[in-house]
Every structure is written in C-alpha cells, then in structure tokens.
C-alpha cells in the first residue's frame, strides 16, 4: 500500500472542534500521522498532494441513503449512487431498505451487499427493515440480518403503528444490541398530508399535517424506549416542538440520538410556492421558525446527525399535481454545498458541521471513521469552502435529477474524496 502525504491543508477535527493548518500522512489506508505544516514525516511518501490551503475533513457518513436496488434501478443504482456520493464527499452510505422488495431477509441483504461491493466506489453499509415488508406486523430476522451485515434496522417512513409490535421489536433488538432507526410521526394525523399545516398550506389548498404529529410520534417512541431500553435513532427531527422531548429523553439517559435532513436545515415551506414538487419531501418542509430551531439544535448538539435523506425519484413520479407527486429529493452531491450555507450564514462552524456529518453518524453506527485522528480510516474529503457555483441538475451523477437546488447559487465544492486513502473522486 502506498504512502500518501497531503500537505498545505486546513485539517478539520470534529472531536477537538479545531481547524488547524497542517499535513496528513496516509499509510495502509489509515491516517498514519498528523503533522504541523513543514514538520518532517519520515520516509519519503510515494505521493504528495498539495491541498492548496483548502479544508480537509473526515469523509461524510450519510445515514439513510436510498439506492433503488433491488427493484427500481432506473432511478438509482449502486454505481450511480456511489459516484454521486464520491463527488459529494460522502465516504460511507448507510443505505435504506425501502426498496421493492424491501430488504427484509438475509438473502435480499446479501444481494444488496454484493451489488454494492461490485459497483460503489465508497463504503456501503446496508440497513435492513425492522418488520417484514415494512408492514409493521412481524419483526424481521434481526439476528440473521445482523450476521449478514445489517448495520441498523428501520422501516424508513413507514411508522410501526402497533405499539405492541414496535415494543417487541425494540426489546428483541436490544438483546442483540441492534440500532433501530424510526421516523417519528403520528400516522393518524399525517395520513395524506403533502404540506405542513399553516397559512401557506391553507392558501395553496394542500392537505397538511400539524407539526405536532412529529412530537407525538417522538413522545410515543421515547415512552417505548423507557420501557425497552433499546438503541434508538430518530431519522429526522424537523420541528421546534419536538426538541424539548428529545432533550428530556437524553437527559434521562436513554440511548437515543436524532438526525435531521439537509433540506429541513436549508429550506422552508415557502420554497414549495408554485407547487414545485421537487420540494416535496417527507416530512414536509416546515416553517422558517422550525428551520431555525433545528439549526440551533444541531449547533447545540441536541440533534446529532445531518443526513442527505437521498431519495431518487424519476421525472414521471414528480411531474404530477403536488398531492399525487412522489416525495423525496436527491442530495448526495448537494449535501456538503448546502450544509456550507449554514457555515457561510454564520450558524455553524466547520468542526460543528463535520461533527454532525461525519463524527456522530460514524459513532452511532459503531464505526471508527469520522475522525481526524491517527489510526482512523483515511476516509477524507478535501473541499474549497468558498468556491461559488450555480447548480445545474443535469450535471448530477445520480440517475434521478430531482434536486430542489436546481439553478440555486451555492458556495463550496468538493475537490477530492478519499476512501481508505484512495482517491475515489477528483474535481477537474
């Protein structure tokens, strides 16, 4: 294995919360040394990369990426998702089981892993469904699925409605130490909703859900955690009203973490104006007050993880009346530039951003990635935090181009992405 030295970089360490000029030595796919600028680095490395004074950070660990294999490979394959991830600085994707069919048996998981290994240039860790067919009736073979490599268990946006089924699945998962990822939402309130209730949805005549539905879903799940003691992650917390419950649950020592999506951090319900279906996501975009509260929660560490919630949809499923259009947006390639909006606006500094993008998700999945430390895997992203560009969706590597950022001005581009010390993406 070759030794590579990246010099003249600003190293972002999310654990220490620092940004330091320096060099980084990669050996055997791991970070071998972190050196102050100009310090000696032992034997001559085979390759020296001049970072040009740009930022080098631990690669993004993205929990909740939808790759449409098996079932809908025309929307996204492991190849196209992997290339998009590499171009977006994402070095590990924890992929969702909401495929067709769902990844709910060791056999289907085996297929997904094999496809991922063949086709994706970045790490892929498949998640499995918590219940068979994501139908909320019978739990999956959690033990066998873990043996087959399932990194976590989730029914994605299907809420397990039966508290009895969910409680048993949590109890069983706890015994195996499995991480359960849930979508906190009261399904009775959110059924049929395409927007968040309020003035905007009323004006546009869209069926809407109260933001309270998220808090009710989270409250229920927290009660079940108290009952079962399971390891739990809420996929997306997007409203101010859910935050006090989350804070209390953490203070009470429950094994709970929470994520949010990049879209809920950077867009609000008004962006839907004109019935733009590329802005239809699940849960729906929220008010500006909610957005700001969620940004503050990421800054304070109450919300642990930022995800892309990458959800490819083809044109046919989006070019429909808003209510009928499919939910979701692609985001692997826009995750970092969009997140950098929060840096440029002064809301989050870079170490805080990478704590939520890389360190915390890696820790939650039990990986030793996500760190700027000697011995950690050399999964890295080199980026220019300031480079401006206008996003053209036709340039995205995803097979589906359903991004809400088409034509948007963005600031910050990935220059190179390394997985185990190997460049999987280099900007032209």
């Amino acid at each position, binding site marked *: 294995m070759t030794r590579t030295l990246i010099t003249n970089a600003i190293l972002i360490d999310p654990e220490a919360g620092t940004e330091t000029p320096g060099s980084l030595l990669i050996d055997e796919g791991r970070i071998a040394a972190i050196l102050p600028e100009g310090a000696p680095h032992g034997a001559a490395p085979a390759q020296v990369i001049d970072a040009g004074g740009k930022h080098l950070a631990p690669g993004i660990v993205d929990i909740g990426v939808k790759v449409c294999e098996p079932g809908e490979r025309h929307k996204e394959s492991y190849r196209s998702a992997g290339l998009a991830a590499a171009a977006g600085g994402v070095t590990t994707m924890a992929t969702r089981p909401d495929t067709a069919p769902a990844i709910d048996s060791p056999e289907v998981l085996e297929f997904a892993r094999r496809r991922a290994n063949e086709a994706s240039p970045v790490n892929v860790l498949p998640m499995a469904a918590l219940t068979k067919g994501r139908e909320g009736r019978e739990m999956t073979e959690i033990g066998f699925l873990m043996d087959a490599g399932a990194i976590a268990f989730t029914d994605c946006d299907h809420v397990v409605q039966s508290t009895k089924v969910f409680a048993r699945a949590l109890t069983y998962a706890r015994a195996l130490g499995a991480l359960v990822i849930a979508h906190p939402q009261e399904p009775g309130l959110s059924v049929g909703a395409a927007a968040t209730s309020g003035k905007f949805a009323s004006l*546009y005549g*869209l069926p809407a859900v109260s933001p309270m539905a998220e808090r009710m879903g989270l409250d229920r799940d927290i009660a079940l955690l108290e009952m079962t003691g399971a390891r739990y992650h809420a996929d997306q917390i997007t409203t101010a009203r859910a935050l006090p419950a989350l804070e209390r649950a953490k203070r009470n020592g429950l094994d709970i973490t929470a994520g949010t999506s990049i879209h809920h951090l950077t867009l609000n319900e008004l962006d839907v104006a004109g019935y733009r279906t590329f802005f239809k996501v699940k849960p729906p975009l929220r008010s500006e007050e909610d957005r700001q509260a969620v940004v503050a929660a990421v800054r304070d560490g109450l919300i642990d993880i930022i995800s892309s919630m990458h959800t490819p949809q083809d044109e046919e499923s989006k070019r429909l*009346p*808003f*209510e009928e259009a499919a939910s979701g947006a692609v985001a692997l390639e826009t995750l970092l530039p969009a997140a950098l909006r929060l840096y440029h606006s002064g809301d989050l500094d870079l170490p805080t951003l990478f704590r939520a993008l890389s360190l915390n998700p890696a820790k939650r999945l039990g990986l030793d990635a996500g760190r700027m430390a000697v011995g950690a895997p050399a999964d890295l992203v080199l980026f220019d935090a300031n480079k401006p560009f206008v996003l053209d969706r036709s340039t995205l590597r995803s097979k589906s181009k359903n991004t809400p950022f088409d034509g948007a001005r963005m600031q910050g581009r990935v220059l190179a992405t390394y997985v185990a010390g190997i460049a999987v993406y280099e900007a032209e």
Partner: protein
Amino acid sequence: MSFDHTHLLGIEPLAAHDITTILDLADQYADRGRSAAKHGDALAGLTQINMFFESSTRTQASFELAGKRLGADVMSMAMQASSIKKGETLIDTAMTLNAMHPDLLVVRHPHSGAVDLLAEKVNCAVLNAGDGRHEHPTQALLDALTIRRAKGRLHRLNIAICGDIAHSRVARSNIILLGKMENRIRLIGPPTLMPAGIAEFGVEVYDDMKKGLEGVDVVMMLRLQRERMDGGFIPSEREYYHRYGLDAEKLAHAAPDAIVMHPGPMNRGVEIDGELADDLRRSVIQQQVEMGVAVRMAAMDLLARNLRARQTSKAVMA
C-alpha cells in the same frame, strides 16, 4: 381597459383593476343575456375545450353556454371516465391536447395546483374551473358581480362566509377577491372546518353564527362538502343545521337588507333553510347562476383578445 394575463388560474394573480375590468365587461354581457340578441362573435373561429377531471353539471354547463354565446366551437370532455383510468398522466393529456390546437382550455381537477401544472405545458389560454381546495376564480368573480349589482358597490361591505371553509376553493377565491377589493370578511363555521393559519388571512373568525352575522351586508353560504370528508368533522347533519344552517332566525342578526348567496348545489335543510333559499327578497342564488355565464363570457373574451394579440405579434415577427 387593460387585462394583461395569459391564463385565469386564480384570483391571487389578479390586481383589483383586473377584477374590475372583468366585472365591467361581464356587466354588459349580463344585460345582453337578458335581451333577444344574446350572441356575439368574440370567440368566433376559436376552439374551447372543457376538461373536467371531477364531475360538475353547473359549472360545465355555464362555461359551455358562455363559449357558445360568443361563437366558439365548444367541446366538453369528462376526463374521470376516460384516460385517467388508463393511466395517462396529466402531462400526457396536455401533450395530446396541444396536438388538437385548442385556444381556450377550461379545466377542473380534484388536486390543488393541477391546473397550474397543465397551464405550464399547453400553448393555449387556460381557465381554472376549480382545482382541489385551492381556487375557483370564476365562482368568486360571479359572486362579486352579483354583490356589485345587488349592493351597488364592491368595497367596504361586511361579508360573512359560512360553513365548510377548510375544504372550499370557493371560500379561498372569495376571501382573496373580497380582500383585494377592500371589504371586511368574516368567516363563520365550526373550528374543525376552518383551515389552519386562517387568522393570518386578514379575516375575522367566528364559531358562533349569530355573532358572526351581526350587521353583515352579505351572507355567503357554502355547500357542506360531505364527499370530501375523511369523517368526523361534525357530529351530525342535524346538529350542524342547528348551529350553522342559515334560517330566518339567524339571518335576523344580519343587516335588514342583507343578501343571501350560495354557490350551489344546495343541501336544503343542511346548510340553508329551503324556504329562505327561495325567498326572492333575500336570496340572489338565481342571479348568481345568471352572472356565472356573463362572467365566464367576459373572462374568455379578455383572454382571447390577448391570445389573438400574441398570435398577431408572432406573425409580424415572423
């Protein structure tokens, strides 16, 4: 007179002077409609297609009559019966239509925003005949003309809109239109039938009908859209009628010369007392139907003028 619009998708994009322009022209058509010489040639040579993805008798008939009185070739298509069942998307339908070269397209659709989507994809003038719970602009315009003719003005009136506001596109378009014309709007109904965030619309909200009707000049009743409901918005029809059905007793709280309106079709004994609906001293429900044809003639006439102007300028450019 200026009316600078390609489509009539809602009241929201219209300015107060646009509304006045439509109403002034509709006034003339209303008078002509009462004469023996009802026909004009404003739409002669043009093709009007009515596409109703949701069933309608009155609105469709009104648009058909309006087009025919102005000389258009009118065709009506009941879409819920045909292509939707075959899996054709709205965009496919638009492409098919483009090939038929219509000039005016009248669309009703069960989903909010669907008419906007269609308008982006076709080359002709599109009129929204109701989309989901979003807008129903010609209904608001005919209501406005009816009020203006009955009250002599369309500003500084106290207007109550009563009933199922949440599911009503008629209510939305009326709130926007009457607001733009500077009237005071009160919404009356049970809180379960009020949309979220309604207080931010610049209206007063009442759940007590008698208080809400106090001194108003116009009472607009809405149809209780039972077919739209998931169930459980109101306890029962009879309790609804008791608390929110318009009868002589409740109407006594309004101004003595207050008029009563209803977009139809009425549920007699659910939201309105049958006798009151037929009382020609108070009810202007029949005039509303009459004004509907006039307003639709005016709207299509104005859009057709813009359409012809665009085609002429394109021809000159070529």
